[in-house]
Each structure stands twice: as structure tokens, then as C-alpha cells.
């Protein structure tokens, strides 16, 4: 009772202050409900709108009602210009970009949020409350919150930019154990420098500016080096992790401004993002540490012994086999995305369908390089949603399938996940192509998949290989199928 009563004695508040809290409460509730709905397929789209409505309410309420030391928000010209440019730019970029470039976009926008958090910390740093400093020196909670926002925000910004570059193919993987050592040292330097700044005692914070900018610089470099050694294909997991970082950075602003919607929204994303990161790792049957340290790809020598030989198949034989099947299951993978052959796959599907063949697609949850990659890819080619079957269901139907056509997939059909406990992918659920009567695999050559391991499926007696770039192979195959 003491605290609140004490508090209510001293605090001046206006009508607007109370109303602002109510709007913030509504906005937070909308965030929670939005996030909840986003995690169910049926309500996801509405969930996104709920969250967006919450954001709109929070922003408008802040603009109209926020007061600091009795002053209302000013500089409206600048604020509206910034919001205007941000809205138009964000809208256009997000609308225009190709579906398959979505992860890049998420990474980019995540970086923007991180940068905003870091900028806020930079600006608030000289304004740390004088009385707090008089009482506790720089070792006070405002300084702590400001530095955390600065460090986390800038790591998130720099890391996201690198992740963006990697996904975009502009930045290549640099795998060097040196970087890892450097990273550990830098982490220690960041903590040390922060402690050093915070133990400066009763000083004018502005005088510490050079050191704060040094902290910023090191944090940015750390962000770059943190993401650098991680394989490009692991970027979705990294982005999810950086996403939760930015959430925490935003929440620091919540402490700083005693702003509850920033606090709730930020922490919610921080916590949900962390869980999501783990779930994404789990779907690939890997641990987060494994992703970050990147020990993947070493490949166990086990079970690479008795492989037998591969058998190829000609285009014309493939066309005949497909044309006279009753049921065909296409298993798309990363190679289909690389070759951008989704439209051709659907064309083949339509032609076969016209010939009375029942064609479906088996969608593995981690096929491709981001969760839902295949859904997005095939949706872009206008493949009807009801032709896409989740891999569990597909496996149930598999016995009645005449031909499985694997297009550019590898790991997601690797039987080692089922029968080789030594394999790094052991335990991951797969599409059980071998339960079908025939398997045709389209790939360019002997290239390995993401997990960089052999695939015994290719050597199985049921399997026939159709080598070549998926796009060209499909093109030719379509011609052949039309001719029969």
C-alpha cells in the first residue's frame, strides 16, 4: 500500500495520462490476441490485422496524449514526414518484392527496428536523470537499460543486414574458426566496456560520449561477425533469433519511458521469438548451438558404404511412366526453388491431370530454406491449395502412389533419417518416397543437400535418376508428355 499511496500523493496527472494508459492496455491486448491468432492457420490473417490495429492505436494515442515533464509531443512536421516516408517506402518495398524474397524482407525490417532502438539509446544517453546519477553514479538502472538497448539493438541491426546479404546471395559464407575466437573476445570486450562506463561514478554522461560510440562500433562489428560464420541456409533461424533480440531492445525503451505497451510488446516478441527459434531448430532436428557454431556438414562416414549403383532414366521413358500412372506425387525441394521451376512443375501437373492422372504435392515442413518455403513457392505458381499435402498425410497415401517425382529435394527424402542412427539428420520426419511403386529423382548431378550427406534413396532399386537442371528437365519432359 505504501508505494502506491506515496506515489499518488506526489504525482500530478491529467485526464490524458489516464486515457493514454487505457489505450496502451488495449494495444497490448491486441498484440497478445494477434500473436495468438497468428499461430493458427485459420485465424492467422486476422491475427496480423489485430496486431496492426494495436500498433495504430498505440501510435496515435502517443502522438495525441503523451506528455513528458508536462510538455506534449512537438516537432509534428518532422514526425509526420518520417512516418510518411517510412510508410510509403515500407509499403512499396513490401508489396513489390517477390514472394520468394520474403525472408530477406523480414531480415531487413528487423534490422530497421534494431537500429531505431539503438538510436533511441544514443539520444537518451546524455539525458540520464541527474538525481539518479547523483545518488548512484552511472551505476543506475536508467544507464543499464540504455546500454542494453544500445548493444542489443545494434547487434540486431548489423546481424540482420548480414543475414539479408547472405540470403540475397551477396555475402558468401566465411567459415573460419578464427572468427569464433574473435567473437568470444569481442563479447568480453563489450561487457567490460559497459562495466567500465557504468563505474565512472558521478559524471556528466555527455562526457562519456566517445566511449559510448566505441561501444556502438564494437557492437556493430560483433553483430557482423556473429552472423558471418553461420551458413546461408541457416539464416531463417538466425533471423528468428535476431528478431527476438530486437524485441528485447524495444522492451528496454519500455523501461526507460515507463511505457507499458513497449514493454509488453517487446518482451512478448522476445519470448515468442526465442521459442520460435527453438521450434525451427527442432523441425530440422538440430540444436540452436549446432546452428550457431555450425558444426553441421562434417558428415558421418557411417552407412556410406554399400550403395550399389545409380540407375538413370530417359526423358521419354519418364514421360511414358508418368502418362500411364493413376497417381503421381511430386516432392518439391530446395532445388525447385533454386531453378525457379515451380511454374513448370504446375504445367506438368495440369497436362498430366488432363490425361486423367491424379497429381498431388507432398510438402515437407522444412523443405527449401525457410519454413513454408514450398507453400509460398507453389502458391506463387497458382497451384491450388488442396493439392498440397503435409508430409504425414502424404506418407499415409504413399502406398497407393504409382510414381513419386522428387524435384530438387534431397534431405527431406533421405531414408537415413529413419534407419541410420549415426546420421546427423536421424530422427527428422521424412517423406517416405520408397513406399510408392516408383521413384524418379530430378537433380543436376551428385550434389549433396543442405545436410551434406549421402542419400541412399538415389541408389535404391526402385529409384531412377533424371539428371539436369530442374527447369530445363521439366521443360523437355513437358514436351515429351504432350507427345504421348
Amino acid at each position: 500500500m505504501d508505494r502506491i499511496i506515496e506515489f499518488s500523493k506526489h504525482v500530478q496527472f491529467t485526464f490524458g495520462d489516464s486515457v493514454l494508459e487505457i489505450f496502451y492496455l488495449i494495444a497490448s491486448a491486441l498484440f497478445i490476441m494477434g500473436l495468438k491468432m497468428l499461430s493458427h492457420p485459420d485465424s492467422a490473417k486476422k491475427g496480423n490485422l489485430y496486431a496492426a490495429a494495436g500498433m495504430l492505436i498505440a501510435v496515435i494515442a502517443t502522438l495525441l496524449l503523451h506528455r513528458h515533464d508536462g510538455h506534449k509531443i512537438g516537432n509534428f512536421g518532422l514526425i509526420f514526414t518520417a512516418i510518411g516516408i517510412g510508410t510509403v517506402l515500407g509499403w512499396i518495398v513490401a508489396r513489390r518484392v517477390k514472394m520468394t524474397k520474403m525472408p530477406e524482407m523480414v531480415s531487413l525490417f528487423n534490422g530497421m527496428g534494431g537500429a531505431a532502438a539503438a538510436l533511441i539509446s544514443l539520444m537518451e544517453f546524455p539525458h540520464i536523470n541527474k538525481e539518479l546519477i547523483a545518488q548512484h553514479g552511472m551505476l543506475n538502472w536508467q544507464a543499464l537499460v540504455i546500454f542494453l538497448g544500445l548493444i542489443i539493438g545494434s547487434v540486431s541491426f548489423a546481424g540482420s543486414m548480414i543475414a539479408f546479404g547472405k540470403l540475397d546471395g551477396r555475402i558468401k559464407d566465411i567459415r573460419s574458426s578464427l572468427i569464433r575466437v574473435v567473437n568470444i573476445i569481442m563479447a568480453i570486450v563489450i561487457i567490460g566496456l559497459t562495466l567500465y562506463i557504468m563505474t565512472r561514478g558521478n559524471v556528466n554522461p555527455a562526457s562519456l560520449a566517445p566511449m559510448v560510440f566505441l561501444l556502438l562500433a564494437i557492437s556493430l562489428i560483433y553483430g557482423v561477425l556473429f552472423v558471418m560464420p553461420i551458413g546461408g541456409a541457416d539464416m531463417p533461424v538466425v533471423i528468428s533469433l535476431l528478431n527476438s533480440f530486437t524485441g528485447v531492445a524495444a522492451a528496454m525503451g519500455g523501461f526507460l519511458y515507463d511505457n507499458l505497451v513497449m514493454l509488453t510488446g517487446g518482451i512478448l516478441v522476445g519470448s515468442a521469438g526465442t521459442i520460435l527459434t527453438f521450434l525451427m531448430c527442432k523441425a530440422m532436428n538440430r540444436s540452436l548451438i549446432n546452428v550457431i557454431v555450425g558444426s553441421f556438414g562434417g558428415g558421418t562416414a557411417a552407412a556410406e558404404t554399400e550403395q550399389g549403383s545409380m540407375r538413370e532414366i530417359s526423358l521419354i521413358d519418364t514421360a511414358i511412366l508418368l502418362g500411364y500412372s493413376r497417381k503421381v506425387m511430386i516432392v518439391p525441394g530446395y532445388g525447385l526453388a533454386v531453378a525457379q521451376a515451380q511454374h513448370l512443375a504446375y504445367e506438368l501437373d495440369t497436362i498430366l491431370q488432363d490425361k486423367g492422372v491424379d497429381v498431388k504435392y507432398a510438402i515437407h515442413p522444412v523443405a527449401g530454406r525457410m519454413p513454408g518455403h514450398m507453400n509460398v513457392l507453389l502458391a506463387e505458381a497458382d497451384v491450388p491449395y488442396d493439392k498440397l499435402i503435409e508430409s504425414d498425410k502424404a506418407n499415409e497415401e504413399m502406398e497407393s502412389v504409382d510414381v513419386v517425382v522428387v524435384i530438387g529435394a534431397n534431405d527431406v527424402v533421405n531414408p537415413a533419417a529413419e534407419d541410420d542412427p549415426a546420421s546427423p539428420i536421424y530422427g527428422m520426419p521424412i517423406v517416405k518416397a520408397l513406399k510408392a511403386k516408383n521413384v524418379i529423382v530430378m537433380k543436376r548431378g551428385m550434389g549433396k543437400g543442405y545436410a551434406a550427406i549421402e542419400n541412399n534413396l538415389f541408389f535404391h532399386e526402385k529409384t531412377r535418376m533424371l539428371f539436369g537442371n530442374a527447369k530445363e528437365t521439366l521443360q523437355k519432359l513437358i514436351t515429351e508428355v504432350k507427345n504421348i
Partner: protein
Amino acid sequence: MEGILQFIYVNAEAIFIVILSIFLGIEVISHVPAVLHTPLMSGANAIHGVVVIGAIIVLGHAETTLSMIFGFFAVLLGTLNVVGGFVVTDRMLEMFKKKPKK
């Protein structure tokens, strides 16, 4: 140490809010199917754009030119995060919207 204790006492309610939000974040997400991972990540990404409110507060009370420039960019970047985030999520979810029509 004293500073930390003051932080805890002064911000006790805020710390409770943090803990409750962490539990809530975990609970709300924990049953999401794999295909929704990317849109969910994207939606969460848009929500942390709430940092734009901090940026508005800073810019709204900025007095020096330097802080106005910084504040301007903070608001701009925050807005990009919010708008871009929600629009990208919406577009992604277009893909998942349609239910089997059988």
C-alpha cells in the same frame, strides 16, 4: 548493487509484467505448426516495431538539431519496421488463407 535494488523496487510492477509476458509469449506460441513459422516470425517482427513509439517520444521532445536528425531516422526506421513488417506478413498469409475446397 544499491542501484539494482532500487531498480527492482521501483520497477517491481514492470518486472512482473516482463515475467508474465515471457510466460504468455511461450504459451501462445508453443503449438504453432511448422508451415506458420515464417509468417509468425514476420508478424512478431512487425510487433517489435512498437519501438517506433520510443522514437516518436524522442523526436517529439528533441530540441537540438542533432537530436532531431537522429530522432527523424529513428522514427523513419521504426515506421519501416512496422509497416513493412505487417504488409509482408499479410502477403505471406495470403498463401495460407485458402482452405481445401473439396
